[in-house]
């Protein structure tokens, strides 16, 4: 398990290679990269700054990963979330999940993203032509996380 909060860019290929290196029991690696877009809520976005709560962030991400490991038989998980100023096109977050079979890897990867979005203390501030604004939380993200409760 690997959980990092960092300003630097990450390398998806290197992270996935590190997961599978020297192992022959992994059948599936599902991964996700979230990127900064040039549009949000109908406005152009020139840049964004990600603020977080050092200490709590790592704890919250660790709990989300622990929850995923309790639900599915996972072989490895990597979560990397960037903070600081990012430009459109820049990668923000990486989640990679290794498992024996694909169904578990997909489910756990999506579960971790859904809970990360609602539980990990990150906040986005966007620079738009109308000025800077804090991104408001979306009800759709709460819904995405809540659907795992019914399983």
């Amino acid at each position: 398990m690997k959980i990092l909060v960092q300003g630097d860019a990450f390398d998806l290929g290197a992270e996935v290679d590190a997961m599978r290196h020297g192992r022959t029991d992994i059948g599936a690696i599902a991964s996700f990269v979230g990127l900064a877009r040039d549009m949000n809520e109908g406005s152009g976005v020139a840049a964004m700054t990600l603020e977080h709560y050092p200490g709590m962030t790592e704890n919250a991400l660790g709990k989300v990963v622990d929850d995923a490991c309790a639900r599915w038989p996972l072989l490895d998980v990597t979560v990397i979330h960037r903070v600081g100023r990012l430009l459109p096109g820049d990668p923000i977050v990486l989640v990679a999940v290794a498992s024996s079979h694909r169904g578990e890897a997909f489910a756990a990867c999506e579960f971790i993203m859904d809970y990360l979005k609602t539980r990990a203390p990150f906040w986005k501030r966007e620079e738009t032509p109308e000025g800077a604004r804090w991104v408001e939380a979306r009800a759709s993200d709460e819904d995405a996380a809540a659907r795992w409760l019914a399983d």
Partner: protein
Amino acid sequence: MNTLRVLYFARLRERFGMAEETLEFSGATAADLVATLHARGGAWAEELGGSRTFRVAVNQDVVALDTPLPERAEVALFPPVTGG
């Protein structure tokens, strides 16, 4: 009296004009602390008065407002999270 470390993040940090303060607190729960801060008026009253949503974390766990505050707790107030 309980000496609390209180942290503010994102919009609340900007609106309150501070990231952190140390507070001598005589109440019992997170709700008591919110009421104390709300009584400062201005941005404090606007953000904590019920029309805007915020979260309270105690020692880095998000909690309900009726949660008692332990001695020397680290309390954080912040808007709903928007990472990923």
